[in-house]
């Protein structure tokens, strides 16, 4: 066998050879290998029917996280361990979450069910059961009540009875160290990544693959090859010294949720409304910046924080202010041979808030997003203000004129009215299938009013 790498599935090591395509999703691979329990409901990361659990080794213990197998290219599966729904039940008994789903009539047509079971399985063992644990799973039949009942039932099981390490799912013999596929490189350091890129200028960066994976799942070729940044330690660090932060580009949103605590509401308020659990477990800050979408939800936050985006390329590293980074629709100051390594910022004092308006609360794309940071002195005079919006221009953008206007004033009703009309003149939102430009225009002002009134 010409296998050059392996991965572990349900405790068994599988070879990966030249005949396999590293761009193929784990979901399609499972299907080809007749592991049909994992379903494809959308192929877009939206429905969660394809949810599988990744087993992360952390020293002696294992942690589980739910991911969308439809978005995960096999190149990023190599050298890692996964569990699918087929492995949960033993010959003698089903897993407690499976039993609860049966007892509570949590399945009707059953097509969403394996995905829910996997999300609940992870929530059960990681002690993270709750609505956010199944936000990324759609069910068209049940209306969710019975599924939530099943969740409540297993949530009542004492944590002491929920083993964390699940040896039977872990690769006992990882065989040999995984290697990069020829068209799917997996550098271990930033320097190596840059060297890869120099050797293959037409390859593209990929980290969580939650954006790129959608295109791949839809059969778009995207690029001749990929350089995966999700195994570079340096990119996964979060450092904080007092009010100064440095967040690595490879940090996932779930890690951010764990590590930021309550000190950065402007970001932590985004995260519950950013995609859903399975996506957040893979999606990264660097990928959000890399996509440079006008509705990238973290981008207004970076603008409001006046963050600095750190780039690394063959000519070394350079900082670019977030305010100077976004040039035009999905065009940025980053050169093709550069990658984002980190974001740094100092948190200014004052009140922070983030607002996202979408058609549903979780797992939806913003119609308008807004990040506000305002500081006043003891008399209410504004001494510092940044108002940043997403979804209302070709790029995420600050309302600089309104900021200048507000500086030195107090937020009395007249000033707020005037600020709102100034805001309207700074943006020219478009109408699309999500919302009309008039609606977006109304949101620009009303979100600011809401911020003012919430004080």
């Amino acid at each position, binding site marked *: 066998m010409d296998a050059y790498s392996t991965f572990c599935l349900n405790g068994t090591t599988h070879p990966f050879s030249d005949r396999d395509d590293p761009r193929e999703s784990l979901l399609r691979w499972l299907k080809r290998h007749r592991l049909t329990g994992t379903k494809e409901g959308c192929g877009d990361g939206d*429905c969660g029917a394809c949810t599988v659990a990744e087993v992360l080794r952390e020293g002696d213990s294992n942690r589980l996280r739910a991911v969308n197998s439809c978005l995960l290219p096999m190149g990023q599966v190599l050298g890692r361990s996964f569990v699918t729904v087929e492995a949960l039940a033993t010959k003698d008994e089903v897993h407690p979450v499976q039993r609860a789903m*049966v007892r509570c009539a949590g*399945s*009707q047509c059953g097509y969403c069910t394996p995905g829910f079971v996997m999300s609940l399985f992870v929530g059960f063992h990681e002690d993270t059961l709750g609505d956010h644990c199944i936000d990324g799973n*759609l069910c*068209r039949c049940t209306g969710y009540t019975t599924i939530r009942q099943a969740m409540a039932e297993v949530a009542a099981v004492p944590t002491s009875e929920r083993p964390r390490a699940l040896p039977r799912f872990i690769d006992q013999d990882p065989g040999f160290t995984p290697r990069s596929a020829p068209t799917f490189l997996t550098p271990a350091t930033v320097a190596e990544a840059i060297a890869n890129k120099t050797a293959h200028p037409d390859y593209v960066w990929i980290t969580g693959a939650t954006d790129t994976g959608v295109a791949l799942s839809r059969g778009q070729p995207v690029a001749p090859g990929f350089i995966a940044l999700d195994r570079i330690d340096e990119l996964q660090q979060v450092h904080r010294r007092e009010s100064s932060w440095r967040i690595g580009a490879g940090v996932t949103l779930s890690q951010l949720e764990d590590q930021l605590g309550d000190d950065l509401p402007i970001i932590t308020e985004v995260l519950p409304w950013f995609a859903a659990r399975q996506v957040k477990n893979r999606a990264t800050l660097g990928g959000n910046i890399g996509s440079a979408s006008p509705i990238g939800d973290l981008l207004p936050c970076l603008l409001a924080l006046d963050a600095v985006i750190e780039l690394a390329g063959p000519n070394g590293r350079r900082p670019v202010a977030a305010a100077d980074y976004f040039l035009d629709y999905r065009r940025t100051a980053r050169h093709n041979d550069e990658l984002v390594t980190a974001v740094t910022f100092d948190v200014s004092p004052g009140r922070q808030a983030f607002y996202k308006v979408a058609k549903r609360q979780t797992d939806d794309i913003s119609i308008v997003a807004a990040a506000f940071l305002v500081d006043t002195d003891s008399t209410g005079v504004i001494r510092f203000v940044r108002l940043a919006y997403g979804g209302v221009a070709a790029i995420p953008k600050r309302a600089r004129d309104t900021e200048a206007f507000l500086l030195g004033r107090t937020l009395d009703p007249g000033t707020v009215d005037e600020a709102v009309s100034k805001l309207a003149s700074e943006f020219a939102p478009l109408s699309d299938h999500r919302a009309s430009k008039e609606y977006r225009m109304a949101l620009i002002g009303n979100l600011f009013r809401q911020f003012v009134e919430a004080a």
Partner: protein
Amino acid sequence: MSIVHESALGHVTGQARYTDELPDAPGTLGAWPVQAPHAHARLLKLDATKARAAAGVVCVLTAAEIPGRNQTGPIVADEPLLPVDEILYYGQAVAWVLAETEHQARAAAALVIAEYETLPACLTIAAAEAADSFHLKPSLIERGDPTTAMAAAPHRLAGTLDIGGQDHFYLETHCSRTEWDGDGQLVIHSSTQHPSETQHIVAQVLGLSSHQVTCKCLRMGGGFGGKETQANAFAAICALGTLLTGRPVKLKLHRTLDMQLTGKRHPFLARWQAGFDADGKIHAADIELIADAGWSVDLSPPVLMRAMVHVDNAYFLPNVRVRGRMAKTHLPSNTAFRGFGGPQGMIVGEEMVAAIATRLGLPPELVRERNFYRGANDAPENQTHYGQAVIDNHLPDLWSQLKANSSFDERRQAVSAFNAQSRRRKRGIAITPVKFGISFNKTIYNQAGALIHIYHDGSVQLNHGGTEMGQGLHSKMLVVASRCLGLPISRFRVMTTSTDKVPNTSATAASSGSDLNGQAVADACNTLIARLKPIAAAALNCEASSLEFADTCCRVADDPGRAIPFTELVHRAYDARISLSATGYYRTPKSTGTRSRCMADRSITSRMALR
């Protein structure tokens, strides 16, 4: 008796199979469509030469390849499987490429050269009206004298309501697979709510007789009406491929394709006028409904009719005119969707009542209540505009009970108090009745069949004509059979729905699957019971009429100790050369419907669901 879904364990362990997941027979081909990039166009040229030569390609299906009728329309023959000269919606498949893998088929589909002359497209109901683009003739239901009553009414109000469509988003997209069995029978596995129609349409397209085609439906990952007719064309594409190549073909739509190619809930435009008095009582209503049918008729006539007979919702409209039309637009053909036009009709009635309440400054629930159908079964104010009495009308009682149980009036006051002091956040509260007609409007569809085999060992195979899409139909059929035969559920196996077991079935739809098939199952059981009882009577030395089937035996009802175990009874019957296989059949009684001045033939059973 409440049982768990018969497939629940299969669902949670991932072992329950769906059409796509049956093992592929060796040589199974993948399929990919060549899609037109115009909503309306003339197809000038279709050249698949390059695609045919591409890697892995086995065949390219175009209209020219069809040996039978190029036609899949369920009611009206206006749906070519593959277009001959005209493209009628964006993304319409002009050809399908079959290759060794779906991937290869997709790559080759891009090589098919199609040339078009674009034509003006109607994409909205308004555009269809402007272009006078409609399917079939308008429909009309009329009662009383709406014109005079409207003119005489103390108050009048008019409005329009735009009602949007909706994708079914069954979690499992459309899927079909076809192959020849060893003996020249074409076998289809399809995620379809209507295997008999799928069988029939496929036979028609291939130029075969129905007995040469078997259609099976294992289970669906949701249907919601979206697989009532829409599965037919995909099954026909696979079957055509199997006919031409001799090889199995499988087609599972990717979500984007599913959304582009299949119909959705009908958007409607409603224009209404109401005449009423100072109490809010409606004297006259004049309602026009336009359904966006899309490019073909599909099920639009019954959907429209169901909307037309639901505009009253729960309200007595003494003088009423309801007109209905089907806009022909260049969109995928809209189709059945839970409620089947009912919700679109009801919302118009509700809009009307709400507008009247607002105009008069009355609480909406009061105006609702004042307009309820009421009185005895034959009371004039208890008659619908389509000529059916609201039999056993419990609505007034139910309403006052609900209002009391929910403390509606106090809550209404609390809401008002909250709103008075809250500037930005507002609350609302509503109570709304629903009257919904159950069963098929078209009388002939209200029939069903079943087939039950009892084996020597006392185990039972249960076949019925309904399909399982998550609604738990199979489980309910198990309960019916288990109660009739007095056997535990574990003795039964519900077989894959198949047209060679139960023929000429109706779609599993119209909230009728359990009633129709359940009665057919019971009928089959009763036939078997009637055959088994004399054997048991002889064994137990009693009258056959004194026997009952319970607790896995046949026993004397008044003396349960006198019993013969079911398996033993079955053995004896077999030895006595008594058939242990029976069909069952059922037709809904009382569903031959009265007709008012309504243009279509239709009926509604006397059941009413209030929720």
